């Protein structure tokens, strides 16, 4: 997802949960829709744009905005969750099936789900339903606290192997604090399937957009109007995920449909520093530079109006966070030259906390928005307008019409609204050398919140935030009033490098952003079409490894590897070798969990699912195995057989046991896993005089939640193509003919030899001459008859032959 572009495996997961932990209480009875987008400049000059559209609805007969096709799918099949993603021409989807479903009917459900999704998104997902494409993921990373909850849920599916002690051979107490991730048997039945070589195209995007209430006509969806940009992106990943909460009777209570689209875009040449070259190889070596971003120019389309059906419509700019010393240096500079350019900026209300669960009605928000001041086009920065009163009155008017049930939510929302979010006007604590115009509505920082409230404020003044985002609210009145479409969305400019310190800091930023702590590579060894080897390498960044070595507490890191290998590639498991930092190690010694399903020809793939206890200071983990390649029949080859067979990407999950990853989180979603559950977003607003306020958001929007979610680091390897020996596809017919001829000759000759009666032949040969003469005559008559019959047939069937014969006859004077 970051600078590296990997081809994600196509995965279908199906979870047969063992327990439904959803609380059936407090299910909102309304539909909600929110749209969000994150823009993040990447270190190599590219820009990451991530859209996320979230819709939530209870089970209804008729929906207002929620797509009915999806609603029917929810009631038709018993899944808990599915994910479907199309990445560079590949689909991935993960589905969780509900608990009480008997395993026998799983296959049927699986087929139903994949076929339904295939028809919904115009993809060949029917191939996913085949058993040879489906694998089961049996080991999942879970935090120790989760395991404790699992124990309390006391479901039958929880196996005894879910103990934390298995994760570390060093015996250190990894379970303390609930901040570690350990592998354990998966609670739910997860099925993964991959479908390589599936082309991603407009025909997939169109049904995807069709599920959005405003499609690509308004709101953030309008940014996707230019299909050339969307499909011409360096990286392109379309995802649909769905979570269904069910009650004990498996009736769906509420379903949440999340659609997201990730693009890694290359800024157009005009808006871009000259250092970026178009060639990919050169790009890797260039000094890392962060690109200026003009979102409208980047995407080739703009938002003409906000989607009126959306409760939330926000764009975030995610910027790298400096380390402490750099940050201080940066701050000093920022006092001088790096200031926010804030042409138009007001204090206004940002509805910060309307979680989709609460499902605040769209009308209420609209009322609040339109009731807000329309004076936003003025670029007078001092014109501050307190629109909170207006919002209050608007909401007051609405409130009378709202039902009793909604009133409570409204009040809650109003309370949160009063905690106004204001943008810091001057250089803020986290503002690197960057200009954003127009000014964002708010800044949000992901910080580690401590339970001690009195200490909190002091801490946050000093604490390093893990992520910083600047928020634009498309539904806010200021944006409504801005008529010029280009101004509606922001323009990001890195401060022109006047001073050397500035460019230095930029480079620091970029470098810091570039490093991701773990990388996974995978390659093929050997040559020829018969045997080969596969090598998987997990690298840890040098600094991190050094830090771990310095901190040497003998702690191990759990590394789980999930790899599906199609049956055509026959891996010899006895050749599986592990080496750490170049030294052979015993695999059995480091293995903590193992679940291996051997492949069966034409039936199921090999599924390797194992977890290792890796020393924290290790830099490289290498896992290699030998394989043989199968010979297939002609019909079993895919259309483009010479391309080879795809091995799905290996999924490496690293259960980190400390806060170490927080610094290197740039770009990599998985790295946001900073291990403690108490991370929270704080929204900072501020106007000149006021010290900036901090609000901890009670409930964030789905995307913010996702970015702040605590999860183990998950890295995917590049996908791999293994060439197999192919027959000559122009030859099958010839082969059949020639082989059949040989067989026919064999049969005929052998049977003829068996029936041979030499004595009879002799007697016939030596029979009387008269009889032989009569026999010869009979033979001649036969030949003549045969010629006559076939000649007549030919003449009868072929007019041209008739003509030719006629001409010959006339020439001879016979006719």
């Amino acid at each position, binding site marked *: 997802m970051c600078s590296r572009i990997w081809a994600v495996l196509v995965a279908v997961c199906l979870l047969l949960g063992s327990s439904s932990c959803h609380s059936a209480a407090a299910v909102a009875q309304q539909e909600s829709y929110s749209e969000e987008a994150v823009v993040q400049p990447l270190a190599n000059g590219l820009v990451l744009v991530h859209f996320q559209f979230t819709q939530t609805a209870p089970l209804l007969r008729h929906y207002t905005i929620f797509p009915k096709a999806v609603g029917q799918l929810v009631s038709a099949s018993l899944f808990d969750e599915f994910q479907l993603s199309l990445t560079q021409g590949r689909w991935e989807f993960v589905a969780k099936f509900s608990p009480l479903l008997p395993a026998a009917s799983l296959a049927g459900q699986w087929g139903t789900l994949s076929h339904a999704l295939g028809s919904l998104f115009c993809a060949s997902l029917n191939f996913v339903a085949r058993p040879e494409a489906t694998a089961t993921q049996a080991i999942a990373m879970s935090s120790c606290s989760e395991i404790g909850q699992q124990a309390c849920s006391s479901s039958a599916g929880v196996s005894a192997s879910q103990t934390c002690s298995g994760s570390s051979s060093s015996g250190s107490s990894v379970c303390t604090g609930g901040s570690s991730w350990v592998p354990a048997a998966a609670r739910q039945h997860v099925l993964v399937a991959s479908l390589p070589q599936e082309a991603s195209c407009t025909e997939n995007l169109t049904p995807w957009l069709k599920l959005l209430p405003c499609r690509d006509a308004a709101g953030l969806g309008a940014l996707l109007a230019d299909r050339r940009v969307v499909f011409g992106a360096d990286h392109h990943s379309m995802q649909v995920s769905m979570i269904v909460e069910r009650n004990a009777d498996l009736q769906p209570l509420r379903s949440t449909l999340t659609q997201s689209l990730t693009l890694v875009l290359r800024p157009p040449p005009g808006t871009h520093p000259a250092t970026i070259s178009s060639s990919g190889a050169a790009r890797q070596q260039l000094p890392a530079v962060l690109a200026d971003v003009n979102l409208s120019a980047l995407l080739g389309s703009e938002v003409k109006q906000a989607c009126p059906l959306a409760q939330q419509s926000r764009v975030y700019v995610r910027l790298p966070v400096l380390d402490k010393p750099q940050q201080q240096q940066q701050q000093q500079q920022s006092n001088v030259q790096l200031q926010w350019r804030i042409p138009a900026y007001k204090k206004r209300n940002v509805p910060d906390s309307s979680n989709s669960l609460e499902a605040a009605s769209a009308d209420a928000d609209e009322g609040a928005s339109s009731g807000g001041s329309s004076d936003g086009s003025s670029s007078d920065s001092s014109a501050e307008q307190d629109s909170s009163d207006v919002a209050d009155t608007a909401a007051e008017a609405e409130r009378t019409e709202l039902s009793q049930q909604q009133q409570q939510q409204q009040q809650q929302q109003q309370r949160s609204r009063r905690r106004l979010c204001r943008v810091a006007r001057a250089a803020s604590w986290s503002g690197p050398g960057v200009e954003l115009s127009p000014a964002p509505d708010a800044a949000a920082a992901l910080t580690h919140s401590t339970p001690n409230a009195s200490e909190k404020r002091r801490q946050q003044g000093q604490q390093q935030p893990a992520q910083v985002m600047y928020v634009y609210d498309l539904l806010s009145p200021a944006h409504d009033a801005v008529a010029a479409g280009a101004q509606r969305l922001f323009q990001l400019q890195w401060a022109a490098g006047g001073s050397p310190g500035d460019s230095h800091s930029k480079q620091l930023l970029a470098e810091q952003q570039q490093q991701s702590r773990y990388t996974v590579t995978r390659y093929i060894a050997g040559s*020829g079409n018969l045997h080969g080897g596969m090598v998987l390498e997990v690298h840890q960044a040098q600094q991190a490894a050094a830090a771990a070595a310095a901190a040497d507490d003998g702690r191990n890191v759990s590394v789980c590897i999930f790899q599906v290998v199609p049956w055509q590639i026959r891996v010899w498991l006895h050749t599986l070798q592990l080496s750490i930092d170049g030294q052979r190690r015993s695999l059995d010694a480091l293995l903590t969990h193992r679940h291996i399903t051997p492949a069966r020809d034409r039936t199921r793939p090999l599924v390797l699912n194992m977890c290792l206890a890796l020393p924290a200071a290790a830099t490289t983990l290498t896992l290699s195995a030998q394989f043989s390649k199968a010979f297939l029949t002609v019909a079993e080859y895919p259309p483009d057989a010479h391309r080879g067979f795809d091995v799905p990407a290996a999924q490496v999950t690293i259960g980190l046991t400390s806060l170490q990853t927080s610094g290197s989180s740039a770009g990599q979603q998985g790295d946001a896993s900073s291990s403690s559950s108490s991370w929270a977003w704080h929204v900072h607003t501020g106007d000149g005089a006021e010290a900036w306020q901090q609000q901890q958001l009670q409930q964030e929007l789905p995307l913010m939640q996702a970015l702040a979610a605590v999860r183990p680091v998950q890295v995917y390897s590049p996908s791999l193509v293994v060439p197999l020996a192919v027959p000559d596809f122009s*030859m099958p017919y010839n082969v059949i003919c020639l*082989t059949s001829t040989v067989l026919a000759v*064999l049969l005929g000759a052998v*049977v003829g030899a068996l029936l041979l009666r030499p*004595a009879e032949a002799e007697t016939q040969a030596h029979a009387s001459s008269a009889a032989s003469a009569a026999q010869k005559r009979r033979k001649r008559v036969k030949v003549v008859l045969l010629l006559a019959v076939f000649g007549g047939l030919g003449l009868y069937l072929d007019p041209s032959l008739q003509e030719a014969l006629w001409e010959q006859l006339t020439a001879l004077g016979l006719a």
Partner: protein
Amino acid sequence: MVCDVVAAAALLLAAAHLFDRPAGPASRKRDAPWLSPQQLSLLYLLQPFAVLACVAGSSTSAENMGVLLAVAGGVTRNAPMAAAGVAVGAYMGLHPVLLVVPLLLLMWRGPEDVLQHVPGPVPPVVMPIVLAVPVAIRFSSRPLFAVWVQLFISCMFKPYASVGDMVPWLALLPLLQQQLQCVKAGLFFVNSFVLLLVLGPAMWHQWINVDAANSNFFYSITLLLGVWYTVFLTHLVRLTAQLDRRLAGKQLELSVDDLDDDEDTAAAADGAAVAAAGKHKNA
């Protein structure tokens, strides 16, 4: 390795039993066995294909052991041994399984009281099954030849062929002494066989390892090998039929006088096989 030794022992047993028989009615000096049973089993062990299959750890040798055990059981009229051999063979591969059905059709028949079990049929199945019945009927008096034909055919039609498949029929070939004495174009058969055996691995190497040729090259060699099998089998079947006639005392215009190079042919067959294996390894 163990399998090979057991198989050789079985061969030894069978050959010893066969050679113990009183010589046929038209017994001549020419009919004296070329090889002693000991030599025969030693030859089996030293056969390059058997060695190759053994070194490669192929399960074919175990299957061959089963087949030869069955043959030995049949020759010695030891029904349990034959059944055990069939069972072992069936465990290892599909094709001896189908051998049970011939067994049912052709139980213990023939004046020599030798088991007429017909190992054979394999998935490209129809052909071996189709051939098994007429061969067994026609050569009911020559069960050993019937067995040999079935081994030969099953080698031809075996899917996922390996060199080990050639071992049984090559091992039993010296027992067909009478027929081989009558082969005229012995030099042609031996030389073409050796050539094909060299070209096959060469083309495989070109296709699979070097990627310098495509699959058609290898296919052409296998096709030619099939043609060679066809010609050789037809020739032997025809010779055997004629031989039967002659032995039955009927009139036959077969000139068996010019068989000077009999010994040379047989020796050449084995020597050539060794040479082929050597080249194979070099390739």
